[in-house]
């Protein structure tokens, strides 16, 4: 505990580095995956291609991706951009499938009704399909958020600064407290991100929460 207090400024700096590496992939992944998922949902031939490509990208091991990106992008091997791009690729790969499923799940009747009352394609997407796909998208985003925060620490193996630094340094110095600090830090960031996402969900998708509660109550009543 004394170590934690004595090194608080370093812990805080690495925590900020970790957050700075985690946030862009989560946001970018979401922004890229939603339109791609919609295309996969809307145009049958594209579905197999997009979902297969996502599945294959998702299969590439993280450390292999970190190392390969500088070669492909022409960046330096220590560039934090590599980590951000790699994590964004994973986020997109994972979320495209979720987004396609989420749009698939929007009831055809509701879609037809919105066409019938005169919604154009753009308005239909933003005011009908996207909100109704919202709860599933959110659950996918929470998975992406947790795994991104945990995976960013691997970047420390190629020298990119994050809480993962404490793992390697703790091993070298044979000092478990330091490793624990890193693990706890990563988990705290993941939990905080998750709470923020849940909160955003409550604000933007209030009906999902209400519907779920009602469903829960109904289930209990019938049980």
């Amino acid at each position, binding site marked *: 505990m004394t170590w934690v207090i004595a090194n608080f400024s370093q812990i805080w700096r690495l925590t900020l580095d970790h957050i700075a590496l985690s946030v862009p992939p989560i946001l970018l992944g979401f922004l890229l995956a939603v339109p791609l998922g919609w295309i996969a949902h809307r145009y049958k031939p594209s579905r197999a291609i997009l979902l297969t490509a996502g*599945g*294959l990208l*998702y*299969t*590439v*091991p*993280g*450390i*292999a*991706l970190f*190392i*390969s990106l500088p*070669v492909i992008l022409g960046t330096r*091997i220590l560039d934090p951009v590599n980590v951000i791009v790699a994590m964004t690729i*994973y986020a997109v790969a*994972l979320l495209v*499938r*979720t987004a396609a*499923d*989420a749009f*698939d*799940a929007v009831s055809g009747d509701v879609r037809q009704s919105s066409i019938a009352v005169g919604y154009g394609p753009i308005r239909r997407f933003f005011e009908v399909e996207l909100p109704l796909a919202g709860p*599933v998208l959110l*659950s*996918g985003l*929470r*998975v992406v958020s*947790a*795994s991104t*925060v*945990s*995976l960013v*620490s*691997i970047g*420390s*193996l*190629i020298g990119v600064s994050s*809480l*993962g630094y*404490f*793992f*390697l340094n*703790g*091993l070298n110095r*044979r000092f*478990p407290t330091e*490793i*624990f600090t*890193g*693990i706890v830090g*990563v*988990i705290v960031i*993941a*939990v905080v991100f998750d709470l923020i996402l*849940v909160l955003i969900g409550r604000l933007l998708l209030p009906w999902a929460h209400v519907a*779920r*509660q009602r469903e*829960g109550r109904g289930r209990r009543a019938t049980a």
Partner: protein
Amino acid sequence: MNSFLGALAWLADPANWAGDNGIPIRLLEHLAITGIAVLIAAVIGISLGLFIGHTGRLSFLVVSTTGALRALPTLGLLVLFALWLGVGLAPVIIVLVILAIPPLLAGAYAGVESVDRGTIDAARAVGMTEWQILTRVEIPLGLPIIVGGLRSAVLQVVATATIAAYLPIGGLGRYIFDNLSLRRFEPVFAGAILVTVLALVLEGVFAGIQRLTVPKGVRILRGSPAPYGAGRAARIEPDASPTGSSSDESDPVPPPAHHMQQHPTQ
């Protein structure tokens, strides 16, 4: 792109295919580490998952382990165990087993859970014992999803076994960590290519096995336009649909089917 050609040249060099540090040895080490870890995890995870799925007891275990483990940084766990048990194979295997249990557990649970309740009731009605129901109804019908769990466990372990080479053990990760600090990037990049190809091959093999394990009757059902139960029985991808899940308890974590989405890529 020069490094890419360099890596290919490195891979083509016969010298790198011979000896203790040769590609075949490193590949076998990687597969052995993966195999041992997945085997141990499967004994624990699959039997527990089948028990939970069949009895419906302890189902909170599935949700809590799969959810909590996603945020746990594997590298941190790895170095912690290495410090505790000494550097060697033991900490690596333990961490890989911990990592592989959740997808196996969730796969076995979701596999049994996916079997139509009516089918199970019918089996019970014709006088099958609980053991017969498990082995002759629930496991065969749920097998594609159970194999799906195995598939994500294997991929995750293959990827993580790579970073486990940071502790001096064998496997393809050796090429990466032995050469990274020396700034010899050809073997580093070649190691990354080898691991990626291995992961893709295993992914393909398991996708094939998954397809083969769909019971004949279910396959016919999938082909037919009849909506009768097809929706449930036909879900062979465990991570396919977060919406297809049946038991979505209120909040903190997304539905069980979704829980299968582990990151295979540490």
